[in-house]
């Protein structure tokens, strides 16, 4: 009982410590100052949310258990921020150019927010188009290769030769072949997505238990019924793995493509801020990217749980 309470309170203690560090110790003179203490604002907002859930946890056992589970991790995270705060802002132990104060990083979210939102939307659009094209082509190729041995014989070499090449290595070629760099980026993302989905789909279909098809045979199912109602559903867990690999691959390609060709997007933002030596903005961009990728993968797993409720625990997220 006491241990539980200590666990729950740990996050609040860590938070108070972080606020004390931020308020009581003056910033190093070498760090450029911000107009407002943005990191302290962040701690304040985080504090209100945490205290709110802490109080709420007294009324619900379920929430209490959840809070108790997450609290030590959150406490550790806030402690880490305090250490960063001490090292970078308070004592400036690292070069201030590359390691800006947390106030400066959080200031970016406030001051640069309209540009960042624009970049997020632009990246999401590019990723969405590329993913849609690559995923549908990959799924179709996978099904064809999985079910038709003759076509597999002729298509497999293409998959083997083109697939393993990192999609971004096409950039010198496609940037000159396509009329806009945006189309080139779509092409590269689609390529990065196409390969894992093709391989995992055909692989999944090839590994379907033979008896599943035999059962369908004895029940009088036709060829297409067997493909769509037995083969594809049975292969879905493997197809999902393909989507997972494809998603992580598409992030890499997205950011690289944006750094090279596009004039908007998170990748472009990172590259542009770097060239202006604004490292606080680079860190802010990285944080946005991390949150964005995390959100997409979480969504992917939510869809998995919906579709594959019958088969849990392929990968945990």
């Amino acid at each position, binding site marked *: 009982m006491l241990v539980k309470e200590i666990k729950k309170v740990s996050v609040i203690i860590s938070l108070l410590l972080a606020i004390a560090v931020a308020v009581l110790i003056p910033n190093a003179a070498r760090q450029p100052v911000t107009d407002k203490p943005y990191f302290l604002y962040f701690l304040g907002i985080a504090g209100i949310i945490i205290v709110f859930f802490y109080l709420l946890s007294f009324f619900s056992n379920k929430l209490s258990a959840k809070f108790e589970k997450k609290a030590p991790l959150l406490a550790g995270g806030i402690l880490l921020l305090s250490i960063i705060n001490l090292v970078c802002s308070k004592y400036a132990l690292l070069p201030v150019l590359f390691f800006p104060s947390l106030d400066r990083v959080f200031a970016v979210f406030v001051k640069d927010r309209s540009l960042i939102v624009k970049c997020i939307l632009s990246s999401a659009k590019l990723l969405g188009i590329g993913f849609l094209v690559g995923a549908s082509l990959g799924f179709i190729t996978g099904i064809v290769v999985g079910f038709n041995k003759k076509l597999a014989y002729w298509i497999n070499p293409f998959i083997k030769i083109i697939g393993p090449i990192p999609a971004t290595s096409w950039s010198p070629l496609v940037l000159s072949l396509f009329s806009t760099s945006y189309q080139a980026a779509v092409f590269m993302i689609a390529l990065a997505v196409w390969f894992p989905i093709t391989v995992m789909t055909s692989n999944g279909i090839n590994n379907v238990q033979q008896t*599943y098809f035999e059962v*369908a*045979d004895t*029940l*009088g199912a*036709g060829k297409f019924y067997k493909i769509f109602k037995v083969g594809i559903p*049975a292969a*879905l867990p493997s197809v999902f793995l393909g989507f997972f690999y494809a998603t992580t691959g598409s992030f890499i390609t997205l950011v690289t493509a944006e750094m090279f060709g596009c004039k908007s997007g998170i990748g472009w933002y990172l590259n542009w801020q770097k060239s202006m030596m604004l490292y606080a903005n680079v860190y802010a961009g990285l944080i946005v990217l991390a949150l964005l990728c995390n959100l997409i993968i979480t969504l992917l797993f939510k869809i998995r749980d919906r579709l594959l409720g019958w088969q849990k625990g392929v990968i945990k997220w």
Partner: protein
Amino acid sequence: MVGEIVIDHVSKSFTNPDGSEVKALNNVNLKVKPGSFISLIGPSGCGKTTLLRAISGLNLQDTGVILLDGEEIKKPGHDRGFAFQQANLYPWLTIEKNISFGLKARGIYKEKKQDVKEYIEMVGLKGFENSYPHQLSGGMNQRASLARALVGHPKVLLLDEPLGALDAFTRMNMQDEILRIWKEQKITIIMVTHDVDEAIYLSDQVVIMTPRPAKIEKVIDIELARPRARGNEDFLKYRTQILKILNYAGENVEPEYYL
């Protein structure tokens, strides 16, 4: 009555990975009367499953013909229901959807919706329609697989050791259920088993098969009234007779030591 199976000079061989040929079925002849319950019994390698799969059309014989009501069997079809040793339900479908799979595949689900309900009730799975196979026990899954094989009103039900994976008590309960279904449906059942008691308890005829070369050794009519008692004298007589043919009666065994 329908559901007559005639097996006429059926042979089949397999090629081993090392290139040698194995005769899986050697000139098998058998006539199965409509509406009867037949067991194929024998040690592994005697070709009983090969024969069953040939009747189902999943793996055809090399030579000879198998007729169902006078028509040659050339491919699998819904007139022959098949239940495997594992229930082999589709894990992504609920019990109800598993059972109605065949009807949907044939596009007659709408008219036969009521049948699905009836068969779910018949195998005692009412209330579990929306459960997934992994949520149910092995016995319940096997019942569902029986319902799936039966709901399309096959003329013949082929059972490939359907109770082999179940524990002894579930198994005995399921045997009674299969008997009940057989009486209600009045269909021909051909069952592969390697449990002698099960074969005697259930069948009108026990077909004993022996390996090397795989063939039918003897067909024994079980003339016991139903319900049968597993332990009575006549039952045990049949048991000894069958084991003798299979060389498992233990008569030729020399004791290893004397007192």
